[in-house]
């Protein structure tokens, strides 16, 4: 079955969505990610959606849920690289993902997680 890979970097998990999301894939990702957070005792989760060009209300809500679940599991979650069209769609759908941190790109997202975990900004570099 098709799966979205979850990479581990130190105590952070990196999820890069490279394909168009469909409902099944989204729920699978939700299951996998929560399992991995617990198994790896991850403290940060970074979800890169820069390749995602189309979202519907379900995918939007699932993204919000995934972020909320990671937070419940005490992992700082950052959604990075959202496309303008996706951002507009989510806002119009009323899914502004409250409480989810966002960043422009992976680099800035890692820096944000690093800062939030009170770590010296060595991995992401200072924000310019």
């Amino acid at each position, binding site marked *: 079955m098709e799966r979205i890979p979850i990479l581990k970097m130190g105590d952070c998990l990196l999820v890069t969505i490279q394909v168009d999301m469909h409902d099944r894939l989204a729920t699978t990702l939700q299951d996998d990610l929560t399992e991995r957070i617990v198994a790896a005792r991850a403290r940060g989760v970074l979800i890169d959606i820069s390749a995602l060009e189309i979202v519907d209300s379900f995918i939007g809500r699932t993204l919000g849920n995934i972020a909320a679940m990671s937070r419940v599991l005490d992992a700082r979650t950052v959604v*990075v690289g959202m496309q303008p069209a*996706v*951002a507009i769609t*989510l*806002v*119009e759908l009323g899914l*502004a993902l409250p409480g989810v941190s*966002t960043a422009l*790109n992976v680099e800035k997202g890692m820096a944000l997680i690093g800062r939030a975990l009170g770590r010296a900004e060595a991995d992401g570099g200072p*924000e310019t």
Partner: protein
Amino acid sequence: MVSKSGSRLAEIVARHEQELVPEWLNQQLAAVSARRDLVNDGELKEQSRRFVEKLRVGLEGMDGNLDLAAPAWAGARELLDELSRTRARQGFSPSETAAFVLSLKQPLYDRLRGDLARDPEALTSELWKSTVILDKLGLYVMEVYQKNREEVIARQQQEMLELSTPVVQLWDGILALPLIGTLDSARTQVVMETLLQSIVQTGAALAIIDITGVPTVDTLVAQHLLKTVAAARLMGAECIISGIRPQIAQTIVHLGVELGEVVTKATLADAFAIALARTGRTVVRTAAAGAR
């Protein structure tokens, strides 16, 4: 009406074509609406001559139902199109433009009266017919005139839309979006798209939306602003709203608009200072300038 009814009128116009033109021309020049400052006599004469000619063609080819859409009137319509368009551009008023066609009535009636004096019934029917035709032509001129004006308005709206949504880069990583004029849904869409596009291009983490130039903020405008802020936040950029005038602050509170966590500042300068501080920068007065 019988099918050959147009031909009698056409006959009279054809017979008197030579005299009709100068008479009509005098009529036009004598009228208050003649804008001799905008169109010269030679040009007007040429237009009049061509129109009478086209009118004759139209009358000759016309069937009983006095329909201007008929192919025989194509020449006249084309001429009026062009005339109306140029006059609208030259600054003629609507009535001055319509007067071109309508002032033909009097010389035409004079001719009809002269030719059909002994046949009152025919005179009445031809008069009626010419009135209908000239009125229709007059209305046609007005329609074209109006359409041209509307095109101008539509074009200006488009230009305003483009003019009024610049995104400027204040500093590395700091964008400013000075909004001018009322925000409606269409403009918000453009504003949102340009802002998000610029965020992607410049990688800016902060955007200042300045609403000094927005005359009024009602619930709808506030909602549009908040949508833009939310969309920018989703992409990872934070927004600061600046340029909130005292009256606007009062309106926002009276309307019960909830701005939530959005940072608001009274002036663009304040917002810029905050933005610099957030990106870890300070502005320092150098000694030389400080001594001034």
